[in-house]
């Protein structure tokens, strides 16, 4: 059983909401749609659910073409960013409502409701009304209603975005557990790379209505196919600088160069764009050898300390870079810093943005 999108696109007037997209979502998988606001996550979900009819392409569900089929006739459940529950009936009745529509027997309903409530930690709250619950509990109730339906496709559209940070953290770890137990296809839209990584499964990165890459989440993170995917899947954003391949060496700005071995060996000579993530930057301590690392002189613009880590915002000849350093670093804005970067963490992109060589560390992993 699978949900298959074949060349599905959606145009509204002259605007393309979704460029032709082909995806196969297998049964029992978690699929994350990752992209900024207005990148097409919700549009794509609406097409999957059958709330919108695609302009072109076909949608195959379980071997059957369901392209024009209404959402009511499909087994789909959806959870939104807003906490949507029936306000005038109890949590129990909320969870039971989809089953009552399916005309299940009383005993069946009761056991299913109690099992789902247990899973979502709602058992003590079953007799309350949704508005008497906290935001986290309300969203749990909405999730329970989606799960109890036994839908083959569960669509979650930024379900945690309106919750407190800490609650989000907790529910994020709970959701993969729930999903392991249910066996449905889960589709989860989010703007946050870290959320995608925590949920695991597969990730499709979206940019301007286009799926730029789809694959297992850690793979998409470590081996992005192009600069756009890398940018979407990095928080803080990925850092870039121009690089030239000349013979056996890669030449970076300021006369820095590295041997073009490993994944870099096969690149034809020419100009490229190098990308690297914030957490792979180190600050050079005076007197320690560079040891093959590239060195760049930067001016510190802003430091942000989270206690466990320090974000340094660097100005490198007009380019803005972000570095993520462990622990607390007491640099002051305006400081001149030398940063070090191991070439093993460098991705090389062509001028069209396509990946030319993956970072050696990621290719090895």
């Amino acid at each position: 059983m699978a949900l298959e999108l074949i060349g599905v696109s959606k145009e509204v007037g002259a605007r393309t909401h979704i460029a032709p997209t082909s995806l196969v979502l297998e049964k029992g998988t978690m699929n994350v749609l990752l992209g900024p606001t207005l990148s097409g996550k919700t549009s794509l979900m609406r097409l999957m659910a059958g709330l919108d009819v695609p302009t072109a392409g076909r949608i195959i569900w379980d071997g059957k073409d369901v392209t024009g089929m209404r959402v009511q006739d499909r087994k789909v459940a959806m959870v939104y960013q807003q906490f949507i529950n029936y306000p005038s009936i109890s949590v129990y009745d909320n969870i039971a409502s989809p089953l009552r529509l399916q005309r299940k027997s009383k005993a069946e309903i009761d056991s299913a409701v109690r099992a789902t409530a247990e899973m979502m930690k709602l058992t003590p709250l079953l007799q309350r009304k949704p508005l008497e619950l906290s935001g986290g509990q309300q969203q749990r109730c909405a999730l329970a209603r989606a799960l109890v339906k036994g839908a083959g496709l569960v669509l979650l559209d930024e379900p945690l975005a309106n919750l407190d940070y800490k609650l989000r953290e907790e529910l994020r770890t709970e959701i993969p557990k729930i999903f392991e137990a249910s066996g449905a296809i889960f589709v989860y839209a989010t703007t946050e790379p870290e959320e995608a990584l925590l949920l695991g499964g597969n990730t499709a990165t979206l940019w301007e209505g286009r799926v730029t890459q789809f694959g297992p989440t850690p793979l998409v993170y470590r081996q992005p196919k192009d600069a756009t995917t890398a940018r979407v899947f990095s928080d803080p954003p990925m850092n870039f600088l121009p690089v030239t391949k000349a013979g056996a060496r890669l030449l970076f700005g300021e006369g820095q160069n590295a041997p073009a071995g490993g994944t870099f060996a096969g690149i034809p000579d020419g100009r490229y764009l190098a990308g690297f993530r914030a957490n792979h930057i180190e600050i050079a301590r005076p007197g320690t050898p560079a040891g093959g690392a590239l060195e760049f002189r930067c001016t510190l613009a802003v430091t942000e300390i989270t206690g466990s880590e320090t974000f340094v915002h660097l100005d490198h000849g007009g380019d803005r870079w972000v570095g993520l350093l462990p622990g607390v670093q007491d640099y002051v804005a305006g400081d001149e810093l030398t940063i070090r970067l191991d070439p093993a963490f460098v991705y090389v992109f062509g001028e069209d943005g396509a990946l030319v060589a993956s970072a050696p560390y990621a290719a090895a992993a």
Partner: protein
Amino acid sequence: MDKPVNNKAWFLVLPVLVLVAFSAVIPLMTVVNYSVQDTFGNNVFFWAGLEWFEQALSSSRLHDALLRQILFSVIILAIQVPLGIFVALNMPKRGFWASLCLVLMALPLLIPWNVVGTIWQIFGRVDIGLLGYTLDKLGINYNYTANAIDAWVTVIVMDVWHWTSLVALLCYAGLQSIPDAYYQAAKIDQASRWKVFRYIELPKMQGVLLIAILLRFMDSFMIYTEPFVVTGGGPGNATTFLSIDLVKMAIGQFDLGPAAAFSIMYFLVIMLISWVFYTVMTNLDKREEMQ
């Protein structure tokens, strides 16, 4: 299961089409039919062509009624819209008093038209009406059955009393949708009361205000019952608005042909003005959106 978009849904619209045909299209066609024929009774009709239309267009009686009608609608809008906004702005936002206000304001809207007319007809009488009697005792020479100005004032005050609540309630709904943060921000920005109205409240009310103006315009342009009950179109023809004139013509004089031609033009004028109104207002909205 291959199930693309199907056309069965059109059958579901059929009952509505039939209903509309019976309630609107067929009567309208009857009127069209009358408007191009002449009759001397006994169901004998003669083809009259566009004669009635020409006659109506050149009739000074119609022109006068139209002018009166436009003047009335303009005055009504000029009073009711600002007054409605003013009332809405000064209504309590929440709590017991808000509910009480809403109920009181809704009351006039619930009274049947002819009853409103009757109420004011009695209210304004010098012999037994509270208003008329009081004015008379104050030494003001007030008599809506004899004086054209008095008749106009009475009809306008009556309409304002009857319908300002509608404008106020619609505006109130628009105001309620403004988040508190806007008012807080305005306080912090030291915006004056006028600026709060001009830049926060008015833009947020724009949509409902458009609907209110449209509704009030159409209603006032078609006003019939209340002035008919109060003044019967008089004194003289002073408050003979279009619809009163039309009824006089059709029922009073049994000039079916001219009356039918007149109604069609009346209908077209209302449609035209409403359409212009709507287009101008929505375009205004869109242009701002685009900028």
